[in-house]
């Protein structure tokens, strides 16, 4: 994780609104074992609107999903490509994932 990402993670601290939670449904992503399939979906490209519980894996371009709204500092795993990531907020407010090695 870069220093900038670290600072952004720290800035998103306490006092935040409670997180929303989501029911995840299988979207037909078959590249991981059944029990994990609903946590991933195929990405439709730059026009694909992501939910507040979703980020795109920068390594393999699959959408990573969670039961709960994602916030900067959250750790997520991309099982299809085996990467571990931290969620960061970009200056325009978009959430992105950065790989942690």
């Amino acid at each position, binding site marked *: 994780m870069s220093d900038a990402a670290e600072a952004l993670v720290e800035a998103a601290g306490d006092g935040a609104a409670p997180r929303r939670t989501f029911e995840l449904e299988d979207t037909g992503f078959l590249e991981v074992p059944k029990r994990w399939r609903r946590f991933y979906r195929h990405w439709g490209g730059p026009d694909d609107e992501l939910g507040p519980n979703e980020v795109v894996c920068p390594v393999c371009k699959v959408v*990573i999903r969670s039961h709960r709204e994602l916030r900067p500092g959250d750790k997520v795993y991309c099982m299809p490509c085996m990467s571990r990531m931290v969620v960061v907020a970009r200056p325009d407010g978009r959430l992105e994932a950065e*790989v942690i*090695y």
Partner: protein
Amino acid sequence: MEPHELDQDDFIAQVQSFEFWFEAVEGYLGDKPYGRDAEVPEPPLDDLERDALVTTLCNYCVGEAAALEASSGLVRLAPNHHAQIFLATQVADEARHLEVFLHRLAELGITDARAEVERRANPGLLAFKERLLRFVDAGDWEAAVFAQNVVLESMEDTVFRFHASVADPKTQQVLEGVVADERRHLGFGENDLGRRLARHPEDRERLAAVRAELDPLVLRSFEEAYEALGLGRDDRPSLGRDYLHSVERLGLTA
């Protein structure tokens, strides 16, 4: 439980296991003999289109044979048993890719695939293969993983994705199955090297030199692949963008 709640060691043990691979490929290959639905009809291709497709598939065979030989050679170099088991699944993936492309060539009427592959192989790709196998033979894990799982896999991923978007339905399905496998290989390479470089940042310089050595071969291979697909210079997708992002994340920029 969410996958994101797993402990990192448990995550790695899980995703690099045979069981994980087994359940994953069962999902997307289970009902696809030779990588595609059996009932997809053979597309009508004129002689020129058929010849171009044969050349492209022959070069895919060169890349996959290189990946098969390199990944099998890497099994003995793997630093731990999880990585060793993962590489064994990659060996099977690469052999499957070689097999589905050879099978597609047979469907297109090629009877002596080995001779056809030799005749149509692009020199840039052959030079890359030769360099990759020298890294493996020398027991150089970092350089071999970089060349194979970052460079070669990124190159294949970019070309296969693009080709799948314009290919006939049969070839498209075959390519989509291959791309699904490549995700694992790409991710393994980048994450393994990323963890190593985090522990040994001094190795970055050496790998950057390997990258500088391989880049002209990568560039040449991309050009040859796009030429075989019949793409004019203006129509070519941004060359190796994913590859460049990947080396940037690893800090291997010039």
